[in-house]
């Protein structure tokens, strides 16, 4: 049974319809990949799912734990168990990563400044962090740095996965977490994600390129072109894209990264 269900989702940005009816069912334990060329609406999908105010829902439903997610604020969605790893993580000056992570964790646990028993203890926080940092090959020197401020592309993406590991979502959407990463970074990120895989987590990996799927094996692959799924299937769909790119749908883009690693 689907734990997370997107039904005929339509969304627009600045008056232009981008998502033209997207449906997808994810059961916990599954990994779904959404692949698509630039501009096909992948980030529109991820942002709409998480509730970005710049994206207008024109129709459809998103159901999770018996709730219509689309009626919730982004923070409520997160506390319900959703997570979005951003394609472009946002810089927030003046707030340390450590402070951010701690605040997020406390919010997730429903700590509102009153019931101290819900608050993460410094000891617990440190030990959680330590393990996750190791897997991601990060050191704790980044903790006092401001949120994503001056981070390299790779550091930003790893920091996203670190947040995911700390917050332990039940539905995680990874928006092009692999793009801009060198092969080693992709492996570290994949290792961290694979560790989290399990019956309590459903994953939606959004990617332009097949490469990351070698490390995080998807159960299902969906191809998004011009705001609609044009093909859905198993892992073999990725192999097909690997060879022919998006040319079948009139897009002259390959599904392999062009840059030399």
């Amino acid at each position, binding site marked *: 049974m689907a734990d997370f269900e997107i039904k005929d989702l339509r969304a627009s940005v600045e008056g232009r319809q981008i998502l033209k009816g997207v449906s997808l069912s994810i059961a916990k334990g599954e990994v779904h990949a959404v692949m698509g060329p630039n501009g096909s609406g992948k980030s529109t999908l991820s942002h709409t799912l998480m509730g970005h105010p710049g994206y207008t829902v024109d129709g459809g439903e998103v159901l999770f734990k018996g709730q219509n997610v689309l009626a919730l604020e982004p923070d409520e969605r997160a506390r319900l168990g959703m997570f979005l790893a951003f394609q472009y993580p946002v810089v927030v000056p003046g707030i340390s990563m450590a402070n951010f992570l701690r605040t*997020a964790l406390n919010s997730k646990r429903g700590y509102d400044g009153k019931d101290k028993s819900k608050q993460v203890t410094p000891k617990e926080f440190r030990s959680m962090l330590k393990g996750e940092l190791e897997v991601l090959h990060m050191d704790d020197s980044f903790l006092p740095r401001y*949120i994503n401020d001056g981070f390299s592309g790779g550091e930003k993406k790893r920091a996203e996965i670190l947040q995911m590991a700390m917050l332990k979502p039940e539905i995680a959407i990874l928006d092009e977490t692999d793009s801009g990463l060198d092969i080693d970074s992709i492996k570290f990120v994949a290792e961290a994600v694979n560790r989290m895989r399990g019956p309590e987590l459903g994953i939606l990996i959004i990617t332009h390129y097949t490469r990351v799927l070698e490390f995080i094996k998807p159960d299902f692959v969906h191809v998004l072109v011009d705001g609609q799924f044009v093909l859905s299937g198993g892992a073999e769909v990725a192999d097909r894209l690997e060879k022919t790119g998006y040319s079948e749908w009139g897009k002259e883009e390959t599904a392999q990264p062009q840059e030399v690693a």
Partner: protein
Amino acid sequence: MATVPKVEVGTDYKEKYGFFVPEEYVFKAKRGLNPDIVKEISWMKQEPEWMTKMRLRSLEIFRKKPMPTWGADLSVIDFENIFYYLKASDKQSKTWEELPPDIKATYDRLGVPEAERKFLAGVSAQYESEVVYHSLQEELTKKGVIFTDTDSALRDHPDLFKEYFGTVIPPADNKFSALNTAVWSGGSFIYVPKGVRVEIPLQAYFRINAENMGQFERTLIICDEGSFVHYIEGCTAPIYTTDSLHSAVVEIIVKKDARCRYTTIQNWSTNVFNLVTKRAMAYADATMEWVDGNLGSQITMKYPSVYLMEPGAKGDVLSVAFAGKGQHQDAGGKMIHVAPNTTSTITSKSISKGGGRTSYRGHIKIYPGANNCKSFVKCDALLLDDESRSDTYPYNDVDAENVTLGHEATVSKVSDEQLFYLMSRGIPRGEAETMIVNGFIEPFTKELPLEYAVELNRLIQLEMEGSVG
């Protein structure tokens, strides 16, 4: 504010701790301003004649000078309806029950201890920090440092006092410095001898009595050659007062190779007009740093300045202003480059909310011959809603050669992208907004001693929740 050990203070504390308590004069406070009142103030303080004369002369100047009209609207101030000198005991006549509820609520939420609240609210005249003050005094005395209230300094160090008083900010400087010189009372006096570094920040708290937070404080700091001192005035908790006009003067002399940092966190209740003149003279290779945080008050006008008198002198102003509903924070800085090879920076951060207004007003002057100077001004304004307002008024006057002058100004709103990012991690909107605002002023907060930084962040949180009056 700093946590300090509490002690029971009885009537015998003068003997016990050597703390100065004003004598009980028979004096009936009168409203209004005239030579008789000024003479009376001076007489009660048993001041030398030169001070009485200077006060009277200043009163004349005050009367002649027109009200400044270039800044905030001051026309509502009624000078005839103000008490110019109140004994501590008169100020305390209020009771806790009479305090406005919003002030009480804020103390609650900040977790300010009872005794401290009473002091801040003007209900008690004494803050129980004499023990700290006493041991600190011993240490300072050993080093030859003088740290006392300005009235005592005039009495106990008359020569030193006369040499410097009014030399940085003469009475005729502006209408409010004239007023202050005519009726001043309280404030801090610090002298740091040659080569002495005072490692712990000196806080007005250590020697507070009601006059210290008076309406017309007068502070004088002299850093002799190669010395260092950090002075902290104010606190983050709102200070409740029924006095509507506060007009302080702060004069600082930083001699060759010395460094002085002056940190202010002020949070007056929102009925107050806070019109302050702060100026420092920095000599060869000396550094003057103003760290100035303004919350509260109805109107604040404050532009800390540094006169860079000799080569190598350096001046810094780092300020934060928060204006809520009905408030106007008109703040900034002035850097006067008199000598060549001097440098200055002004960093101003302002936040406006609920229709509040902030203005940055700055003046960089570089005199003829003051070549090879560098000055950099950066002002960032954050508007939390559409009703709020922020303006910048930078004035530059450059008459020298080979000068590097930089000016950067930004006005922004809390960014949707930042807000969405934080909220996507489960952080509720209000808390996320507070984080962004605290992040915005972090360059300021990180310069504060930790306990002040924590409190400032907490206070911003309260302001953001709209629970502060």
